[in-house]
């Protein structure tokens, strides 16, 4: 019996490493949980892409939930996400605010006219300074902001049909239930 002890030790290690491999297939290693969830949106004042003289602020956006989607014409994963936003953007039930990150207005406009514009409104952060306050580290990223200006959900990486159905839509539905 005692000769089997090393074998059981080996089986335990196999189970441990097997669990590790399984865990890694279920979780994105690169994903850093945002400390901003359930905290107020950082204060921002960013120009609109269509009309740079018009500045959009956090306070002006209070009162209605919306989804901020960080994108850039240079960002390859945003190109993957784009068709999903084009088909689903109007169905999610909240306005889609494009956050043009580290881009030039010319490139952004050319990209949108080539692939289509799923956004209800686009704000521009050419330097990416405000994005630091949002904790953005890789586009695309999406932030669901509720009517009180609190970030309720964040997704890092491209939104897919599955993510929208399994995570985003339930998060938006949860907002609706709280509405007076």
């Amino acid at each position, binding site marked *: 019996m005692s000769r089997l002890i090393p074998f059981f030790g080996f089986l335990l290690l196999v189970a441990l490493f097997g669990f590790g491999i399984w865990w890694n297939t279920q979780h994105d290693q690169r994903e850093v949980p945002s400390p901003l969830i359930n905290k107020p949106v950082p204060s921002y004042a960013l120009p609109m892409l269509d009309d740079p003289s018009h500045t959009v602020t956090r306070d002006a956006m209070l009162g209605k939930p919306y989804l901020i989607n960080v994108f850039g014409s240079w960002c390859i994963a945003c190109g993957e996400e784009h068709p999903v936003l084009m088909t689903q953007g109007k169905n999610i039930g909240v306005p889609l605010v494009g956050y043009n990150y580290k881009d030039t207005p010319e490139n952004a406009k050319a990209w949108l006219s080539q692939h289509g514009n799923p956004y209800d409104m686009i704000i521009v952060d050419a330097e*990416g300074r405000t994005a630091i306050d949002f904790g953005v580290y890789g586009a695309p990223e999406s932030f669901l902001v509720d009517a009180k200006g609190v970030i309720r959900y964040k997704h890092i990486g491209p939104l897919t049909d599955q993510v929208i159905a399994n995570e985003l839509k339930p998060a938006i539905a949860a907002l609706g239930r709280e509405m007076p």
Partner: protein
Amino acid sequence: MRALSVMLAACLLVFTCPLLAQAIDPLPFKDHAEEVRFQQLTRELRCLVCQNENLADSNADLARDLRHEVFDQMQAGKSDAQIKQYLVDRYSDFVLYDPPVKPGTLLLWFGPLAMLLAGAGVVIFTVRKRARAPMPIDSATTDQGEDW
């Protein structure tokens, strides 16, 4: 052949120079002490894009932005702790190469020590048990003939 190698060398120069220029990324430090402090601080912070690199070494765009942010905050007279807190507030503890000791990280900090103590316990237990047990016949002495 010679012309080809000259062309190749020229190509290498042309393509690598912009990379070098990016890596250097000079900041206007007012003295050496400030630069040393900056280097130390950015070495303790993780780049979010290339997650196995620190802020000091990373060439990623965001790392450059964050270096500038750290530099600006140093100019504004913020302490290292304040600057770290600023980044933790935005990017979570993940930006720190040294995770802080708190309930969620106790296993990380003291797990290895616990394993070591447990191992030492097993060794002591086994050695004592063997010392008490009668010596078994050593099998090595019986098959000496096969030794080569």
